[in-house]
């Protein structure tokens, strides 16, 4: 009789994560999660490595925190530096920064649904029953069959073995999703090409700099971006969003799983002309919207493998390794906002926008979709809700990116020059695809004196804090029904819907 169920490692996320849960028997012969722990299992020490370096190094070094969302780190660093240097990017530079980030959002959301999450829902072996004429599916069918016939050590690896469980049963639905999985590889690559049009290369853009970007704006560059954007729009409209809705239709339980604490935080993202973010900043606590106040952010290391047991503001906090500290179970710190654990990410961005006073673009675009599919805004706080908001955000972003492209002025400077101060401080707040991201920079004698990053998955996968409050993923797991403790597929679905990025969380 197991009382603990673990997923160690929890794969198909970025990085090293283990989930440990306590479970209890249910009346219907299943199990229910009663408590959960999120363990971040990797640490590199970026903040220590940045100390003493030239501040201009920071946007290159911090991009290497994460190969999935490097642009968000690069941009947070660039924004912190722009604040420290007292400059704003040139008009082209601001637009190009948005366009590089938009392309990375699109690729990140596509990767998350298809290549990370979909294998929790789709039965890859259904391809063996495929009888249609699609060449990719025929090839996959032959490959899986050959691998089984040949008695390979692990047939159809890396798609098998997997947890047993309730995958989709309909052959046609499965094959459609498997076909999309294959097509999504090409689509995410296209999105990376689009990011490289202004970003030089991906992952890890070298063109992103304080003041804008180094890539001059030309008609040829605009066309290179636009043609790919049009192709991605078609994919997202005709494949991505319909696929997510299809999965929602096949797994209606997902609307009731993974309910979070309903506290949401967004730093706002995609700076426009008036320096206002296109997706708004704010916080929602107990259903009530409030203006973002970065002074309310603290980091607590009580259960993290670092020295310290009281909350500190990121600008003053330190990262000193204490690997064997009693009671510590994760390399992730516990950030809190006015003391509350906060969910961040696409769902949080949408919930903050919905709760914000006055009309905004997100609300007016979201409500018709919810009405059309009979979903309430409150139901979005769930595993399926987290999946559904990503294609929606992607589609709105594609629309907006087309407008940013139109606003580019070929020949105008892509970057604004600047002077480097000996002493300065700056904060860069943005949103990574996975949620709120902040970089805090202090320069002394031309060098980085302190650098602190508070990262989306630090919020979502945070451990307990000094008051014993669990982090958002730990909370969302509680109540999850698990049919078979040896195959805790249901718990994995809850965690993966948050799109954890552990390399980011523990940088």
């Amino acid at each position: 009789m197991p009382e603990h169920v673990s997923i160690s490692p929890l794969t198909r996320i970025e990085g090293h994560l283990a989930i440990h849960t306590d479970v209890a028997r249910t009346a219907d012969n299943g199990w229910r999660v009663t408590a959960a722990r999120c363990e971040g299992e990797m640490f590199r020490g970026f903040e220590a490595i940045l100390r003493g370096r030239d501040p201009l190094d920071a946007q290159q070094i911090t991009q290497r925190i994460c190969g999935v969302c490097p642009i968000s780190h690069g941009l947070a660093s660039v924004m912190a530096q722009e604040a420290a240097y007292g400059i704003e990017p040139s008009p082209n530079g601001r637009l190009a920064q948005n366009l590089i980030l938009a392309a990375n959002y699109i690729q990140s959301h596509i990767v998350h649904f298809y290549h990370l999450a979909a294998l929790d829902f789709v039965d890859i072996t259904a391809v063996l029953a495929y009888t249609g004429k699609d060449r990719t599916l025929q090839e996959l069918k032959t490959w899986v069959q050959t691998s089984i016939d040949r008695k390979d050590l692990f047939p159809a690896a890396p798609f098998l073995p997997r947890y047993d469980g309730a995958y989709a049963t309909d052959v046609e639905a499965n094959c459609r999703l498997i076909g999309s999985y294959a097509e999504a590889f090409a689509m995410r690559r296209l999105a990376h090409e689009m990011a490289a049009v202004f970003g030089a290369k991906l992952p890890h853009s070298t063109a992103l700099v304080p003041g804008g970007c180094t890539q001059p704006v030309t008609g040829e560059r605009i066309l290179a971006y636009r043609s790919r954007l049009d192709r991605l729009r078609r994919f997202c409209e005709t494949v991505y969003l319909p696929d997510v809705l299809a999965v929602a239709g096949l797994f209606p339980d997902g609307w009731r799983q993974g309910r979070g604490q309903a506290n949401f935080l967004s730093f706002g993202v995609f700076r426009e002309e008036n320096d206002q973010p296109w997706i708004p900043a704010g916080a929602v606590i107990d259903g009530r919207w409030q203006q973002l106040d970065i002074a309310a952010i603290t980091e607590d290391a009580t259960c993290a493998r670092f020295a310290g047991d009281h909350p500190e503001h990121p600008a003053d906090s330190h990262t000193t390794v204490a690997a064997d500290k009693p009671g510590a179970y994760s390399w992730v710190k516990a950030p809190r906002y006015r003391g509350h654990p906060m969910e961040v990410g696409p769902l949080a961005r949408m919930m903050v926008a919905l709760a914000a006073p006055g009309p905004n673009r997100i609300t007016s675009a979201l409500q018709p979709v919810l009405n059309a599919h009979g979903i309430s805004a409150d139901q979005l706080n769930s595993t399926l809700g987290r999946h559904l908001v990503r294609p929606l955000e992607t589609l709105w972003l594609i629309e907006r990116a087309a407008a940013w492209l139109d606003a580019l002025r070929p020949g105008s400077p892509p970057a604004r020059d600047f002077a480097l101060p000996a002493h300065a401080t700056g904060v860069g707040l943005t949103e990574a695809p996975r949620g709120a991201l902040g970089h805090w920079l202090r320069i002394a004698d031309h060098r980085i004196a302190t650098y602190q990053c508070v990262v989306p998955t630090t919020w979502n996968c945070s451990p307990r804090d000094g008051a014993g409050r669990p982090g958002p993923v730990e909370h969302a797991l509680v109540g999850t029904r698990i049919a078979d403790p040896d195959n805790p597929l249901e718990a994995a679905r809850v965690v993966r819907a948050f799109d954890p990025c552990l390399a980011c969380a523990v940088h």
Partner: protein
Amino acid sequence: MGEDETMETTASLSRRDFLGLGATLAAALALPARFGPWLSEGLENLARQKTKVLWIQGQACSGCSVSLLNSENPGPVRLVTELISLQYHSTLGAAQGADCVRIIDQVGRLDDYILVCEGSIPTTVRSACMIAGKTLYERLEPLVKQARYVLALGSCAAFGGIPAAEGNPTGAVGVGEFMRLVGARRRGRLVNAPLCPSHPKSIVGTLVHLAGPGYPDVDPELFTPLMFYRHSTHDRCPRYHDYARKVFASHFGDDHGCLFKLGCLGPLTRTQCPSRQWNGGVNWCIRAAAPCIGCASPDFARRRDFPFYRKGENHHAVDYDDHDRGGANDATP
């Protein structure tokens, strides 16, 4: 919904198909035509599961895995299904929990597999990278001794990279240094494929070479395959003429001239970036007027006082020696 129309044929590949694939790959990698049949053999050995691939992530950002997915000809679907016999990959594979350990242990005992490592390895704070309750150090030690070949992907795995940069709080090292520490033979087994991230063509090209013709010619100190890391970026730079005429860009976003005075590290960095470029040839650093930051170099990001960029006002705070940057005599290392 096929992905790379030029190359994707049928799943039950024939000998002739492999010959065609080998020739295409040799062309894509800008290798001499004689490499074609060799690479065909490598592709076939991988596809027939004679050579398996075990992919382990350490202190990594997953950027090299993401970069693999940017591969074209062959594209990612064919790569992760038929072509490279990928037994385990923690970002792409379906396996989770106990299955992961089972796969790593079982494949790890075989004789003929290629171990791909992404990311560095913490050697002092060993708990700074754990896989299923064991340290990466413990998991990797038998694998680097047992594997037929060890491919260290990206600059972190090759040389330690940013985790091993000055300040290095976890004692992070590259795979080569790790193999030395645990007494694993490197000569004829270790191949480093640096760059941050590694280039998809280096990843695929090196894997296929290892599975076919075998161990490539490598730099004796750096273990980098000479077919991909022979020439400096500066030597083949499209802005080389500006350098020769002493026309230099003066600030970020200035597209006119050589980027050396902004800090470009092309003279110290051996890559194929000028010919391959990035992301399907859409762009690359120098073309985008972005100085090379030396991300393939063994010293990438290593020293605090050796910044990526040169920007006038802070010259007194940092060591800006032209000779250090390989510029004094137009030297290539």
